[in-house]
């Protein structure tokens, strides 16, 4: 684990693993420090941004030193089930690349339990880890200029759902009708870091 300075009002905690990052995030969040403005998880890091002029970063650093990050607090993560029509444009390509049938791709994708590691790219876009090895495939060589909202895709070690239509290079397995993000809702984003997610196939 390494603490890196990030401008005047932020620090980046580089972590050895996703688990360690999640534990660090939980530890800082639990302290409920009013001057911490943003707590943004990355794939292997945690960004801690504070109110300009605040000295709370020192406090966070001390807190993280004494926290037991190998044994994260158990907590009760939220469980979200997303219904998916597995009719994606790249389903056959993913099957072919993995050397299995399309049905087996669906079985693998629905059989796994995922965790929202971090977000980004678009509001409500969660990067989900826990993807079975055969489905870990590279992005498309040529990204699509428009991926429809609700598309479920895979890229590298992640799977995720496009909350709105946008350009994108993930391999698409299918789509969901569930709304992932609504800025006017009390809870705007369905997915937040730490949530557990499963996919369920529907016809």
């Amino acid at each position, binding site marked *: 684990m390494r603490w890196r*300075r*990030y401008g*005047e*009002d932020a620090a980046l905690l580089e972590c050895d693993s996703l688990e360690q990052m999640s534990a660090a995030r939980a530890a800082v969040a639990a302290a409920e420090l009013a001057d911490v403005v943003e707590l943004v998880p990355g794939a292997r890091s945690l960004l801690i941004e504070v109110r300009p002029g605040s000295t709370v970063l020192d406090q966070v650093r001390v807190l993280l030193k004494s926290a037991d990050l190998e044994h994260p607090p158990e907590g009760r993560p939220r469980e979200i089930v997303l219904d998916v029509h597995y009719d994606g444009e790249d389903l056959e390509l993913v099957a072919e690349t993995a050397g299995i049938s399309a049905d087996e791709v669906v079985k693998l994708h629905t059989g796994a339990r995922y965790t929202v590691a971090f*977000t980004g*790219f678009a*509001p409500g876009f969660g990067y989900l880890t826990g993807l079975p090895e055969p489905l870990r495939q590279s992005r498309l060589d040529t990204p699509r200029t428009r991926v429809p909202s609700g598309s479920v895709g895979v890229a590298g070690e992640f799977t995720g759902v496009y909350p709105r239509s946008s350009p994108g290079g993930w391999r698409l397995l299918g789509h969901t009708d569930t709304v992932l993000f609504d800025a006017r809702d009390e809870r705007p984003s369905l997915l937040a870091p730490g949530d557990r997610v499963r996919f369920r196939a529907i016809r």
Partner: protein
Amino acid sequence: MRAVEIVSPGPSALVQDLGRPGHGHLGVPPSGALDVPALKLANRLVGNRESAAGIESLLGGLKVRAQSSCTVAVTGPLVQVMLDGRDVGSHAPVFLRQGQTLMLGTPTTGLRCYLAFSGGIDVDPELGSRSRDVLSEIGPPPLCAGEILPLGLSRGVPTGLDVLPTSPSPAELEVPILLGPRDDWFENLGALAGPWTVTAESNRVGVRLAGTALARTAEFAGRELPSEGLVTGAIQLPPSGLPVVFLADHPTTGGYPVSAVVRRTSLPAFAQARPGTIVRFHPSR
């Protein structure tokens, strides 16, 4: 209802307040006025709280009509402000009677003018803010002709003043930066000093600079950075080696290394830096 009508939005007119920080973990950028001191000043001039929503007008040309009487102030770069065809000047509170129109000229330096109305623009907030985020498309859409914007109740008293000094946006910016978190990725870090030139591909997401590209060290050449959080002012170096200085509508995470971060006090200057502006960075640790 107190309200103001957009007669003509000019090149771009967006509702902005101080943004919606605190939602980065959901992928939502902070957004908000790029030139924060300018918006705060405009609000103070009309007797508002500094955090009230106003209009960020790119390169002027904005024309509004008062649907009810209100006090207005224009800040940012010095600009011609016409009240029913009479120049009343920027950086001062102006009283509009119902039906009167106010039109901004084109600023000769800088990019973004700020219009505050007594009571503030009272459209529905999203995630605690009325700011338009151009990256995420959250908040009120870009303003268009004929649109009616509701104003809140006016509570404060406009500031009385004689003259407010303004300074033109400089053609060359000297910008202090703090190195890190990923300065160790680059071979010729000295090249970060510049000079760089602001390009036309700049917007509320970030200012793109042209100049001598930075090269990665042998150790980091071709290495992929696992996505990590971004802050406003982060100087990111994509594979081209040409820096992007992220502004308020920046993505919340990114997969390219951030070599340094602009000091807070220099951020408003980037909000006003026209294409062609020369930028020199002064790094420290």
